[in-house]
């Protein structure tokens, strides 16, 4: 079992954004996440890797309480964002999700116009006082999503009419429109071709300057390309967490080694 570094380590240069302590997740009788401790740094891309069913997506969805929508899911332990427990009774998950944005595996734009897709979040959270402010937010978000130049002439066109890669960048733009502090990505490139994947990866690298990005991926190469920190999950355990370069050249745990070199574990 991997032990997270203690909080308040004087040697830490970066600040900790999210810290999980003894997180356990049960789906009915299934123990999906077993005692996970991890500190995720601010303005860093952290990748979660691991075989299917290892709990990495489950853990990701704990960070913005998307698991709340599943009746049989129980989460125990603490997940702190900026030192505040997100599973505290006083926390409204809706408010939390504005702060912790999420991008999903399949590009899922609303079947509305590109403009409305991005404007939806700011609208329901009341981030814009008037139309021109909203226009500004939409443009800024689309620029951050690196898709502004491609769609600026057709903001009224349906978001579902874009190509897969464009749709995913639109979804990222939609996620950043609510000014989140953390951006969760659940296999954002699994449905994309290599060029679109590269564009999204480039975008993730740019987003790092403003957000803490946590990305779940099945592609180890992708984890290696985009992340600074990598966590390896196996059978619900966080097996190893460390610098991406270290994980990919010299993993300490045999299970990590077996997984990333493609050996029979």
């Amino acid at each position: 079992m991997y032990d997270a570094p203690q909080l308040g380590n004087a040697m830490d240069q970066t600040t900790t954004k999210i810290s999980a302590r003894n997180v356990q997740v049960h789906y009915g009788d299934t123990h999906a996440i077993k005692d996970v401790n991890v500190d995720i740094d601010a303005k860093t891309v952290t990748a979660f890797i691991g075989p299917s069913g290892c709990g990495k997506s489950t853990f990701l969805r704990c960070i913005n309480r998307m698991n709340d929508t599943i009746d049989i899911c129980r989460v125990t332990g603490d997940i702190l964002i900026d030192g505040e427990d997100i599973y505290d009774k006083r926390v409204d998950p809706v408010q939390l999700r504005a702060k912790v944005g999420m991008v999903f595996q399949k590009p899922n734009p609303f079947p509305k116009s590109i403009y409305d897709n991005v404007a939806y979040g700011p609208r329901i959270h009341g981030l814009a006082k008037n139309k021109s402010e909203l226009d500004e937010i939409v443009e800024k978000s689309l620029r951050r999503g690196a898709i502004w130049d491609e769609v600026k002439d057709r903001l009224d066109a349906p978001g579902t009419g874009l190509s897969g890669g464009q749709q995913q960048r639109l979804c990222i733009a939609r996620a950043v429109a609510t000014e989140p502090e953390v951006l969760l990505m659940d296999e954002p490139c699994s449905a994309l071709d290599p060029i679109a994947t590269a564009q999204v990866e480039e975008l993730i690298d740019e987003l790092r300057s403003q957000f803490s990005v946590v990305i779940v991926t099945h592609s180890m190469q992708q984890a290696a390309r985009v992340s600074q920190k990598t966590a390896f999950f196996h059978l619900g355990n966080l097996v190893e967490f460390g610098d991406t370069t270290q994980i990919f050249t010299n993993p300490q745990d045999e299970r990590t080694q077996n997984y990333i070199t493609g050996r029979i574990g």
Partner: protein
Amino acid sequence: MTDVTPTTSILTVDDRTRRRNVAEKRFRTYGVIAITLAMLALVGLMTSIFSGGLPAFKQTFITLDVYLDPAKLDKDGSSDLEKIRKVSTFGYAPLIKKALEEQLAKPELAVEGLKSKDAAKMISKEGAAEMRRFVLANPDMIGETVSFKFLASGRIDGYYKGRVTMQSAERDKNVSPQQLQFADKLKDAGLLKTSFNWGFLTRADASENRPEAAGLGVAILGSVYMMVIVLFLALPIGVAASIYLEEFAPKNWFTDLVEVNISNLAAVPSIVFGILGLAIFINFAGLPQSAPIVGGLVLTLMTLPTIIIATRASLKAVPPSIRDAALGVGASKMQAVFHHVLPLAAPGILTGTIIGLAQALGETAPLLLIGMVAFVREYPSAPPEGFFDPAAALPVQVYNWTQRADPAFVERASGAIIVLLVFLLLMNTIAIILRRRFERRW
């Protein structure tokens, strides 16, 4: 495993493949036969209904100039409406008889052996009633000669639709060959005409011995009232129930039970709903019999399961990724449902609703039990009071007419079926258009 030997060529078809191909062809043939049978049945049904029912939309009229004799209608010449009102329909019959006598007196129209009493029978009994209504509406016309377009009696009408012939008239005590001859002469003189029967769509039902005056007006109005009630009750209740069950309700034994019961409710025979309506709405709640409100409530109960099942299916068909997307940007569950899921499910919900309505429109059995089979001459008033007035319904009217002895009513029943089919077709078309219009790809 089969070994691939290099000697087999794909250019020759082996036995196995041939048998497989033959089996496939056979199956396709079965399919074509099945579809042909179904189409034949449909065509047969349509032909019988249309051939029997289309004449109901035509009606024979006899135009007569009638002298509104003040001696009969306004005996003391006071022009007092109250007194004129006292003259019953029977008081008008002699005027018609007299007008016919004048026609019979004309040499070119004279028919040997036809008494004016019999000639008067060629005009529908409704004719006198119409005249009375006209006079009451225009009392100052008394003393004038007015041209009236009377309904011909059912037998004369049947003569021009091929239902009555000279031979059958000889055996019929209601019509004589002389009457038919006179009718032919009237036709030659341009006084007897066959034209489109608007009355069929607008008139109320009529009694046994005057089929020519029977119309669907009250039945159509009653059916429309009921559909309005069903739409405004079943749609919101059904959609709300489905949304709650599908999106909000916890999954436990209780919601499972509710689900099973809703599915079972859809399979309950409709007559059972009629018994329920009779027991609860009429006997217990004391709502009036034969009223659209009771029929509407019963049909609402019947339609609810259909709407709930269709709505849940279309809600389920909305990809969960859309819900995730909405929740992911911080929408509440209700916002996610109402902003994103419901608009996507709307075409399916509307289609389900319209299909449910169409089903309700054609439903007869429960309406029989709540007394909508009654003979209703009066139009219900405008809603909402009209919902509590007695009315008929289209399918019940069909049932009613097929019970009557006069063959003219059979024709009208078929005509009513055509009207019903047109309504159903219209609703299905709307359903298809709505689906096409709102269907979106995601």
